[in-house]
């Protein structure tokens, strides 16, 4: 019990610290403005449509660290706008998509990636669905095989009265 409560305390502490940490980043940057802007603004859009499309794709995968749970592409926050501009700046400068992303991650941490990287502990996240599918599929196969092989059941499980009742219920 003690162990559990300690574990919970740590959980809460860690989680509640997150928004505050993010907020601290913003305050330091002085980027928090009172008036919300409006997602992607016309003046942000790049002239080169191919480059702009890459910018949009990249922004859709980056989390706005001051928002609840939005990508910088969807967010109205000023910080999100700054990040969108930063992404576009790097793209215009000739960076590859991966370089742009790692540029942002270097500054804001792994937390901004909406698509977790396939590294370290995250491998478990990516592999788990397939492992579960394999395990579940295996069990299902065994079950189906066994059902197909088992002899016909005896019908004595229900009494005559119950049978009549069942028939009644089934409305047949």
């Amino acid at each position, binding site marked *: 019990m003690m162990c559990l409560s300690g*574990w*919970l305390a*740590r*959980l*809460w502490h*860690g*989680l*509640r610290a*997150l*928004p505050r940490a993010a907020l601290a980043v913003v305050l330091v940057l002085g980027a928090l403005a009172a008036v*919300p*802007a*409006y*997602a*992607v*603004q*016309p*003046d942000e*859009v790049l002239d080169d449509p191919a480059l702009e499309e890459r910018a949009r794709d990249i922004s*859709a*995968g980056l*989390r706005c660290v001051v928002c*609840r*749970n939005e*990508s910088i592409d*969807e967010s109205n926050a000023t910080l999100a706008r700054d990040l969108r501009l930063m992404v576009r700046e790097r793209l215009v400068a000739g960076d590859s998509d991966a370089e742009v992303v790692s540029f942002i991650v270097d500054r804001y941490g*792994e*937390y*901004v*990636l*909406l*698509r*977790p990287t396939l590294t*370290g*502990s*995250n491998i478990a*996240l*990516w592999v*788990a*669905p397939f492992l*579960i*599918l394999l395990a*579940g*599929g295996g069990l*299902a196969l065994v*079950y*189906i*095989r066994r*059902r*197909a092989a*088992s*002899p016909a*059941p005896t019908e004595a*499980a*229900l009494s005559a009265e119950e049978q009549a*009742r*069942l028939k009644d*219920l*089934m*409305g047949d």
Partner: protein
Amino acid sequence: MITELGHFALILAFMVAVFQMIVPLVGAHRGNAAWMAVAEPAATTQFLLAAFSFAALTYAFVTSDFSLNLVVANSHTDKPLLYKITGVWGNHEGSLLLWVLILTLFGASAAWFGGNLPPTLKARVLAVQSSVAVAFFAFILFTSNPFLRLEFPPFDGQDLNPLLQDPGLAFHPPFLYLGYVGLSMAFSFAVAALIEGRVDAAWGRWVRPWTLAAWLFLTIGIGLGSWWAYYELGWGGFWFWDPVENASLMPWLIAAALLHSAIVVEKREAMKSWTILLAILAFGFSLIGTFIVRSGVLTSVHAFANDPERGVYILGILCFFMGGALLLFALRAGVMEAKGVFSTVSRETGLVVNNLLLAVSTFVVFIGTIWPLISEMFWDRTVSVGPPFFNMAFTPFVFGLAVALPIGAMLPWKRAKIGRALTALVPALVLAVALGLLAWAVYTGHSALSPIGVALSVWLVAGALTDLWSRTGRGDIAGRFGRLWRLPRADWGKTVAHAGVGITMFGVVALTGYQVEDIRVAQEGQPYRVGAYEIELLRVDENVRGPNYISTMGHVAVREADGREITVLRPERRIYPVAGMPTTEAGINNGFTRDVYVTLGDPQDNGGWAVRTWIKPFANWIWGGTIIMALGGLLSLSDRRYRVAAGAAKAQPEPRGVPAE
């Protein structure tokens, strides 16, 4: 005074619930009929008390009784009456009261309509249901009391979050709760069956209508929420893979699996222990959803109440009910021997595949949702899991389900020939491939997934229709059409619901794959082209006064390419002064094949306004399909064979087509 009565009724309901949790259970154990029978009036009383309590709170909101803390925090005298009422559940405490009201309503319904249940099973079901109620009554009374008074009432309230002042969202929570809480019935039936140590075909028949009803409400609730997000949040998305959305998707997926596995229990007496497990897990996911929404443990756009104390309490409820039920399951599941024998190719196998894919896709959503927690806790690594992960990991399972569904639905029970089902489906297949190729040819340069998605949705709809048609047997066309109308409603329900899945899928694929977007500074009186339409910002009115907001309203003309005017849209930016919150109201022209969706942005320094325009193909089909799915559920539910009181009302045998089996 009414407030105090409401509070008192809530306390009384809690005590009745405690009584109903214990006495009938003991009665069932000892075979004491009187003790068992007490569950019925107790369930009714509990519901009436909860209803009174809820009415008292509603009264306080409607009359703007600002001596109540909750009313002050969530209401305002200027608010339209509708939103004063919906404000009752637009907050943590009030929504929890709605939750228990629905919980007791389901319990009472089981008492009213469960006339044909064996007395011991009924007593146990009602007792288990009441134990859930006890936990939530205690939760309300001890941590989230909505009836707390203020010593010095203010003159006016702080207003409801403006985003919630919308008809779509006003009715989204009640439906969602009907779904979440409806699954508690499946849970109660499962636990009662485990205590009885018996699961048979009749049990499958009893548990299905409740699950179907819960699933139906959940479908409507999720649909409403998604529709609201689409038109209210102003960026035209319909699903964000937000933890709170996932919280509603998981029970929905599990309920869909349970719905199908309960058919196998009912028709074939197989998959019994799996079905029991699903029934327990379905409610478990409802509780997990409640935990996610109310604890604030995961950062979400829908953050509701960020209170660790409440979170720990819900976690406790979750652990108790899941732990207890799963322990019981581990002890008793062995008793339930399967009886139905089926060959490898059969409807049963199809439904096993259905359950496998639905369960694994639920797991994908689950692990993606809680991964940030796990990662933080065990590796001290702060990560985010967002839409890119879910789209990648979830889509394959949906596609797999879509491929398998029409085939599985066509297979007969026990033993089937796969060739026969496939032959019947050839026209559907040809149509699907043809339309997929068409989509691929028309929209070049898009992702390859979209044409596949189009083909699969056509496959689903055409497959569902083929299935219904094949039920009419052989013979001339006229005779088959005649039989079509006489098919049992459950057959129609199955077809309609499956077609609804296809239609929703089509809408999702079309919207995500083929939408056209335009962001620009629009000058008044200068038309421009977006997709096949001409858009023109006519003018912008500032300081337009609404009942409790101030609006900046654009007038945007939408015309066909030839200049014929379709409509003038009025996208708005509103400020709700009391809440101090700006919102965006999109201007949307809904159409059968596309929506034109316009939002208004900031005025620009050198004249003009930022305007964002989307052409969203087949957007309405997403919610249209949801409604059709729900309609299918309703049709099934209204089938006389599935009525809860089927045994009580004996109807004349109807002339039928070829039976479903």
